[in-house]
């Protein structure tokens, strides 16, 4: 009994340590975004000046909107394409299917630095060049494998007789997909979409290579700002992003129990 209690205590200590390791830097950053001193000086003095000046920073705001726009479009495109690809891989047998599936994994493992360089060279070669369109294209390519892997995992739990039953009741392929298959894989599609959003919104390396000075995304802009000289405005914008994305995650987790029975 005593050992169990000690082990339990150790376990709890470990969790606290882990959570602290993950969240302490973020909490400090969020706190500093409300601190008057730009040099992290204590005592803490409450201010919302940084948020106010953030509002004046057109470049940062423009980059934020770019990021949000690109992330949303990337999510839509890669979720739709990825889910369709997963369904095709699930439903049909064709030559080279195994090879095609194996090809899905390397892009996840290849360092983004290399992917980014390759894309830059390729896009220049074919005349797409740099800019928001190039960034969008790059992000969709990066996010697709994540969506396919997540949706395919969900499809593994789908009983193929359900599609057969629907067809025997007179449903055409479209009705079968929309009314039987899609509702079942929806948690996977949403999870895949979240991945795609995160891959795009967090993306620095590929965006950095493909952006032009006027047209850039938030992570690239933050990096540029830090190089020029750190301002607490960065803390402020980061805090807003963290709050919004955590709220999104919690909402999604509330409505969809991932992995479990829906």
């Amino acid at each position, binding site marked *: 009994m005593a050992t169990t209690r000690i082990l339990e205590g150790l376990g709890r200590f470990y969790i606290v340590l882990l959570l602290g390791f993950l969240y302490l830097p973020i909490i400090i950053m969020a706190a500093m975004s409300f601190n008057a001193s730009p040099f992290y000086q204590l005592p803490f003095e409450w201010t919302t000046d940084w948020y106010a000046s953030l509002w004046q920073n057109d470049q940062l705001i423009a980059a934020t909107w770019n990021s949000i726009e690109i992330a949303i479009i990337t999510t839509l495109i890669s979720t739709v394409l990825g889910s369709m690809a997963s369904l095709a891989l699930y439903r049909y047998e064709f030559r080279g299917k195994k090879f095609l599936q194996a090809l899905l994994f390397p892009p996840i493992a290849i360092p983004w630095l290399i992917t980014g360089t390759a894309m830059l060279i390729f896009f220049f070669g074919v005349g797409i060049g740099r800019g928001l369109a190039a960034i969008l294209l790059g992000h969709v390519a990066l996010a697709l494998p994540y969506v396919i892997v997540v949706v395919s995992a969900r499809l593994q739990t789908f009983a193929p007789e359900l599609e*057969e039953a629907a067809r025997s009741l007179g449903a055409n392929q479209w009705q079968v997909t929309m009314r039987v298959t899609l509702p079942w894989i929806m948690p996977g599609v949403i999870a895949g979409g979240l991945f795609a959003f995160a891959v795009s919104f967090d993306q620095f390396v590929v965006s950095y290579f493909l952006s032009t000075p006027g047209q850039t995304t938030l992570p690239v802009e933050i990096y540029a700002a830090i190089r020029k000289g750190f301002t607490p405005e960065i803390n402020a914008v980061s805090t807003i992003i963290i709050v919004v994305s955590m709220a999104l995650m919690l909402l999604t987790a509330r409505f969809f129990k991932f992995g479990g029975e829906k």
Partner: protein
Amino acid sequence: MAGVQVANVSRSFGAHKALDDVSIDFADGGFYALLGPSGSGKTTLLRQIAGFDFPDSGRIAIGGESVERVPVEKRRIGMVFQNYALFPNMSVADNVAFGLSVRGEPKATIATEVQRALDLVQLGKLGGRRPHQLSGGQRQRVALARAIVTKPRVLLLDEPLGALDKALRVDMQIELKRIQREIGITTIFVTHDQEEALTMSDRIGILRDGRLVQEGPPEEIYDRPQSEFAATFLGDANILRGDATGSGIKLPDGTTIAASTGASVPAGAKASCAVRPERIRISTGATTSDPANANTLKGRVSKRIFAGNNSTYFVERDGQTLKVIVQNTGTERLAEGQPVVLTWSPDSTVLIAA
């Protein structure tokens, strides 16, 4: 409602011949069982009739209309799957409504028809439940209601009772039969359970290795099997092999067995006789001269299994074990090791060409 004609249907998967020139006529309103061991092609045949898969050659007609290249969603069939395949994201009522809803029937019609179908399977009050909240037997009924609510031309059942426990299975057999009679739909039913096939169906088709072995009413197949396989697969049978004499066979040890039913086999050809275990009388006495029980074999009881209302005796004779089932009427029971005489009628003996 319609009959189904299957004519010379063949289907191969690679080198494997799943169906080999199968022809069956399923009459309108009948209850058919397709019986066979696993790998016999019975499910493949059902899937051809359903339209999930198309034959390599041959013709399939539903209600006189050729459908062998018509996909399942256009065949107007109803199917019940082995594991029911209820849609987990829908309520019971929505599951049943699915077929009407994809057809675009008006909501009011759907509601009435769904309620009628649920009442028919005695689940009238459970429309709001989810499939996972139902018992196995209830799911089975929902699957049936869903399959018949669209008024299909034919009802296909793929081992529908396989997942239920024994007691429930017997209940569902009676229930299924009642519903089938009530709506009078042509029903084709795949099973590997011979008892189920015997008790439920008007006609049975026995399949083996992709071929139709025999087809007919249960009594006919049971009483007059045309092959050793049909004799032993549908019910129990003792098979005696020898040379045809014209009126029976002669066993290797010289004993003759008279058979007055079955095939006519020219004298001298190899043939066998099948006799059901319950048709044989077992006694310790001397051979009778009763012509009604003219077939006589001597042997020794090697084993007795007591099963309450009857006993099964295994009798050793000339290196072969014969099975005899005796109703328990309270008379003397025979001990293991006891020499016995088996007698049975030529009328109960079926001659089968080798």
